[in-house]
């Protein structure tokens, strides 16, 4: 299985690579369109702030490539948010795979949300062998609004989409690579998708 992690800037993507190693798999970091196109699985991680991350994607012309991919793609954290239509963070236009908006948490809660929260109403093979209300690790100040593509939701300030799916595109707000054994199961499921 040929897994690539899209490398388009700074940040902690080593953890993701290690998470695949722990599954007995391996993943390469790359920003090469050829390698990304040829991969069996593509991981689209998130780094820092939405508008600057989008600029980094554009610089590498990855904003055009990603929506054309046909193999299973997993957006993580900001990666998932960039697959949505728009983000309030820096008024960013997203890649429009997920038909929803990314909004900022209100001042009623502490921002960022940091820590372990439950994912509920799980609706995808991505969650095979994972219990409803399993705990996942999250760190974020913006969230995707619930829509018809929502495959898991989480409550913080409001009920929001903590996972989305559209065809071969999957997105998770939490960090599976940092979510203990449950997170590892999710990554394993992603590798085993039909």
């Amino acid at each position: 299985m040929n897994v690539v992690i899209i490398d388009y800037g700074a940040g902690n993507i080593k953890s993701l690579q290690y998470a695949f190693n722990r599954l007995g798999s391996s993943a390469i970091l790359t920003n090469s369109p050829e390698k990304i196109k040829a991969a069996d699985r593509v991981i689209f991680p998130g780094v820092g702030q939405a508008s600057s991350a989008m600029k980094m994607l554009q610089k590498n012309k990855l904003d055009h490539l990603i929506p054309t991919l046909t193999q299973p793609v997993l957006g993580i954290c900001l990666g998932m948010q960039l697959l949505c239509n728009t983000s309030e963070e820096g008024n960013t236009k997203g890649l429009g795979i997920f038909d929803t908006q990314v909004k900022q948490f209100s001042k009623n809660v502490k921002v960022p949300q940091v820590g372990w929260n439950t994912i509920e109403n799980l609706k995808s093979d991505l969650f095979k062998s994972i219990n409803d209300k399993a705990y996942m690790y999250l760190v974020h100040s913006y969230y995707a609004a619930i829509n018809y593509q929502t495959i898991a939701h989480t409550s913080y300030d409001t009920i929001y989409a903590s996972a989305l799916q559209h065809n071969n595109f999957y997105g998770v707000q939490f960090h599976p690579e940092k979510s203990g054994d449950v997170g590892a199961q999710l990554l394993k499921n992603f590798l085993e998708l039909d």
Partner: protein
Amino acid sequence: MLTKRIIPCLDIKNGRTVKGVNFKGLRDAGDPVELAKRYANMGADELVFLDISATLEERNTTLDMVLKVAEQINIPFTVGGGISSVADVDRLLKSGADKISINSSAIKQPALINELSNTFGNQCITVAIDAKEINGEWIVHLAGGHIPSKLNLFEWAKEVERRGAGEILFTSMNNDGTKLGFANKALGQLSSTLNIPIIASGGAGTIQHFIDSFKKGKADAALAASVFHFNEITIPALKKELQNNGIPVRL
């Protein structure tokens, strides 16, 4: 529901854990990776590594340690100690740290908080504050709590938030090492005036102290070292008791 976090803290020197650790069955109590694994398996929600190395050479060993921890541990961890530049943070994050914490360097050059937050995102920038209550006023200290600054805890915490910190790790020097409980009054004041998460540190001795830090101190997370290292409190027992007291935890 977002749960309250329990965070063991490990002091690191020259890539090894220091201070005695009293765990049965550890092959090497000084090996940070083995300890970190142990804590992750017990249900720790995060880990903090505090680098107390004095030399550059020792610090480079810490980078190797961070790589090894990231390779083997599947929960988040923060690295603090001796960080004073964007380049320092870049190296740590690239080695696999999830968050970094800065302390004295933030006091000496507050703009560093803005710079780090803008470069890496506020989610990975924790500002640690050591403070001591002197004649009724909480005074921020630097250099591991050795040197008093002119800063008031609550004003400094507000500034730290405004400059873009994602989280505050507050250690009460009056409570640290006493095992008499956390500084809940100051914690509560911090938590109600700030809109970022607060980690309570200093004073943990009993399970009740943790309950109080969440109920009275309104902390989002509680950090401790020796009570965990010496097995005086085990994480599964602690979390069970927190749950019995209506505090949301990951079990």
